[in-house]
């Protein structure tokens, strides 16, 4: 059995090796799409909020789960995390944007509006992956 194919079907999204995205035909970073490259920028954050925004939801979840564990016991965060994991698997094909309705309802995002809903909406992104390539990668045929 091709275990890689089965495992990718359980993953949340198609993972991509970091340095290969937006690589031009010679493997060099394409300045038109990626912007100016500088080693310092890739190692250190250039904006004070960059790191905290990247990890914001993770940190919130960690805090909420540990509070829940302290109040209600270990079963509460375990059950919730199981539900999150189950809803995160309800996805469309890899090159299409999923609406994540069940996950949003669990997290409570269906009752609030923030900058994540207004700015940089992935459903309106200008780039899309090649459908055939992404499906083949996901099923492990590549």
């Amino acid at each position, binding site marked *: 059995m091709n275990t890689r194919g089965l495992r990718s079907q359980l993953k949340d*999204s*198609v993972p*991509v*090796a970091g340095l*290969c*995205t*937006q*690589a031009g035909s010679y493997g060099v970073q394409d300045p038109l799409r990626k*912007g*100016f490259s*500088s080693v*310092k*920028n890739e190692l250190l*954050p*250039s*904006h*004070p*909020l*960059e790191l*905290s*925004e*990247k990890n*914001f939801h993770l940190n919130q979840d960690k805090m909420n789960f540990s509070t829940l564990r302290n109040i209600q016991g270990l079963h509460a965060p375990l059950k919730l995390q199981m539900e999150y994991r189950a809803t995160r698997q309800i996805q469309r094909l890899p*090159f299409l*944007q999923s609406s994540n309705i069940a996950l949003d309802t669990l997290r409570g995002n269906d*009752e*609030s*509006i*923030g*900058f*994540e*809903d*207004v*700015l*940089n*909406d*992935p459903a309106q*992104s200008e*780039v*899309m*992956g*090649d459908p055939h*390539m*992404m499906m083949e*990668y996901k099923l492990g045929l*590549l």
Partner: protein
Amino acid sequence: MALSYTVESPSPGFNFENSTRNVVFEALLNEGKSKAPSPLKTGTTIAGVVCKDGVVLGADTRATSSEVVADKMCAKIHHIAPNIYCCGAGTAADTKQMTDLLASNLSIFTMNSGRNPRVVMAMQILQDMLFRYRGQIGANLILGGVDCTGNHLYTVGPYGDMDKVQYLAMGSGDLAAMGILEDGFKPSMELESAKKLVRDAIHSGIMSDLGSGNNIDICVITRQGVDYIRPYEESAYKDK
């Protein structure tokens, strides 16, 4: 080779590519001597007073862009909910965006629960949002409203600090306005004297501060409803 065709969808929310670009530019040009231009702040005088029957909020109407008056009839008192209004000082775009997000969140709550929102809820949402962005969103807000628990006036700063007060002034003209408020405020004032006090406070802010000017807007919130008087008093130097 084939991996370059698979694309990671961008994470929703803020994108920090431009600050990366700015850092690279500062290093390239002038060896770090020239800095990227910073966003412009506008001057303002806003004030609020809690009186016996409700809350009175006041603001001037000038929006400046360095030395030029960008808008002579800027609306600085934003509608949040039918019983809650908010005055904003600081970066104009930030206050507008914050108040719009707050208003949307509260109207979702109203539709969900069928209840009128309380002023503490608005204050808590603002505080959480502003603290999350560590002061990078330059919004100084005065939140005032009347709900089932009474008349409330809150101030929220850009770093998420908040205070519950009876009278308040903010903005670049706040020192002058605060002086008038400190002198004339009495607990449980009548509506008309509260309106006059707020008008005097904004007027002194307009006279003493270059960033504030033009007309004075007043918003009176009571249990019976809202009276948004725009303009309450027009500038003596208006074009005929």
